[in-house]
């Protein structure tokens, strides 16, 4: 058997006739390879979104469409004071989540920039709050501070600060949920900012040190500008993670007390699955989606602008 020469053969032609050219065959195969993912996205993401868009215009229950109300659900949402309370807490929760986790994560990344004994171990250990399932961490926090007899309230009382109701008092609960969010999310910032810090050219840092730029001045004039782009991207991602976050809040407070820790996503969930008003709930989640899309387009423009300069 020869592969090359023997092919000029029988019919007197080397190549014969083929239905598909090599390029066409390649394109077809690639389309086939993309097909499963396209089908999945259409079925699990695309179709439901369209479905939800229609559903948000009806006032029925979960399995019953009810009456067509057009944009009535949306109008009602905007008139609902509970919605505006949820907007307020969503903003607080997101700001706290983004800035708090960034401050903690970046601070830790700076601390671990220079080598010291056990650095590799700490790098893994400090990621644990992000890695551990949310159900477990919410449970541990519950144990730590849920009741007046838990460890933290007892300790606070023992040092003479009086009785603090971490989850039962509305304002305290808001603070606790935000701190919990920071605790869960700082490892993400630690990883991202740690990566950005390591990417800074060591020679540049040494040159700055030789030039007498050190300590806070180096942070202000060298490190912050050089990691600005990563910071910005990390913030954007964390905005998404925070706005879309459901279990962090739901598992710790369920949105209470007195709905003080209800974000828009938690409100949408409760409207659908506890009040059984899918149209209303979907309308809320659509408003969140549209706000996020608008925000991300704006932020991506900002990134593009700043990277052009």
């Amino acid at each position, binding site marked *: *058997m*020869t*592969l*090359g*020469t023997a092919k000029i053969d029988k019919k007197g032609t080397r*190549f014969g006739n083929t239905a598909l050219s*090599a390029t*066409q065959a390649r394109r077809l195969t690639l389309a086939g390879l993309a097909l499963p993912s396209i089908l999945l996205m259409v079925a699990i993401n695309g179709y439901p979104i369209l479905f939800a868009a229609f559903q948000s215009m009806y006032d029925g229950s979960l399995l019953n469409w009810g009456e067509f109300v057009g944009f009535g659900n949306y109008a009602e949402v905007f008139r609902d004071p509970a919605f505006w309370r949820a907007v307020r807490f969503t903003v607080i929760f997101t700001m706290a989540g983004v800035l708090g986790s960034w401050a903690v994560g970046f601070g830790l990344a700076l601390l671990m920039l220079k080598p010291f004994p056990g650095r590799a171990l700490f790098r893994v250990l400090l990621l644990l709050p992000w890695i551990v399932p949310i159900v477990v961490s919410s449970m541990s926090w519950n144990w730590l501070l849920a009741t007046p007899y838990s460890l933290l309230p007892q300790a606070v009382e023992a040092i003479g600060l009086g009785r603090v109701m971490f989850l039962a008092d509305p304002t305290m609960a808001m603070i606790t949920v935000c701190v919990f969010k920071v605790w869960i999310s700082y490892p993400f910032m630690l990883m991202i900012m740690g990566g950005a810090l390591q990417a800074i050219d060591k020679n540049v840092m040494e040159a700055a040190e030789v030039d007498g730029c050190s300590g806070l001045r180096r942070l202000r004039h060298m490190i912050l500008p050089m990691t600005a782009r990563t910071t910005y991207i990390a913030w954007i991602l964390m905005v998404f993670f925070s706005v879309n976050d459901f279990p962090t809040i739901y598992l710790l407070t369920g949105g209470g007390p007195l709905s003080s820790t209800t974000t828009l996503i938690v409100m949408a969930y409760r409207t659908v699955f506890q009040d059984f008003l899918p149209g209303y709930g979907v309308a809320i989640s659509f408003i969140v989606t549209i706000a996020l899309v608008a925000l991300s387009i704006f932020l991506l423009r900002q990134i593009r602008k700043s990277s052009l300069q």
Partner: protein
Amino acid sequence: MARIELKNVSKSYGNHEVVWDLDLVIPDGSLTVFVGPSGCGKSTLLRMIAGLEDISAGDVLFDGERANDVSPVRRGVAMVFQNYALYPHLTVRDNIGFGLKMAGAGKDEIRERVDEAADTLHIEPLLDRRPAALSGGQRQRVAIGRAIVRDPTVFLFDEPLSNLDAELRVVMRVEIAKLHQQLRATMIYVTHDQVEAMTLADQIVVLRAGQIEQIGTADELFSEPRNLFVAGFIGSPQMNFLKGRHIGGGNIELAAGGRLHMPGHELADGEPVTVGIRPEHIVTQSETSLVSGRVDVVENLGGVRFAHTTLPSDETMVVESRADVRPKPGDNLSIGFSNRHVHIFRESGEAANRLTESAIGDSFRRVE
């Protein structure tokens, strides 16, 4: 075996033309080398022949048959890649036999043919190793083995030696030349190294910016470059170029001083020209001197020295001198050369056409 023909072949990515309206015949059994600076389209051209790259316009013909839409394997080509492209998860034996296996050959046949190829390339002891455990030269042999085992109609080499060290490159160059003599198959070889091109090729295709500058044998390109680009590209060290002007009657006045009598060229009176002369064709005896140059630097390569000189016109000139003449920095060299080694280029860069062969004299010129 196959004769390959390219007809009006173009390749563009978006608005960017990589190869433009190119015609070329690669004779059956020849070793053709595509040479040119990076970005000249030589690799793209090779990949179009291989069937790895779509052809934007024009046709590629194998033995007269249109092959544009035919897959590489049905064209019967084999290719040796710059980075060897050995499958990391397969042993050398399986690497070489992979194409046969894909073609549905039996186990015994594959074994037999792989052994045969390994014997040709002296890599039998390596057959059970994986590519990661091989040196660069060994990988190169395996890559060639993978090509020859399939008995292809055309061998394609894409800068196969550029990742080897200088010494090994010479060895492998000779082996590829031997392989061509042995197999007498059509081979196309892409390189940016003109020395490789000169030593290997039956036919050299010099490319620049997606177009053919000149096709010919090594001798033709060396002695009759069609334009400034080919003249400068072929030969090492580079040809020297001097500015001048045709003052009429075949007389050329150099900017560096001195006058050449070069009758028989199609030149207008007063036309600016570039005069080309290779370093090895320069004679430094005083009685043949045309211009004088001050030596700046001397590169000593043992048998040969290259003196880098500056002429009165501030042009630079590299002069080759053999062992008996030993120029030193600061020396003044009398530079002269034989007319038959002089190349005249017009302002467009094209070589000036010669009118008649006999009109070219062989006299040495003197300083005016």
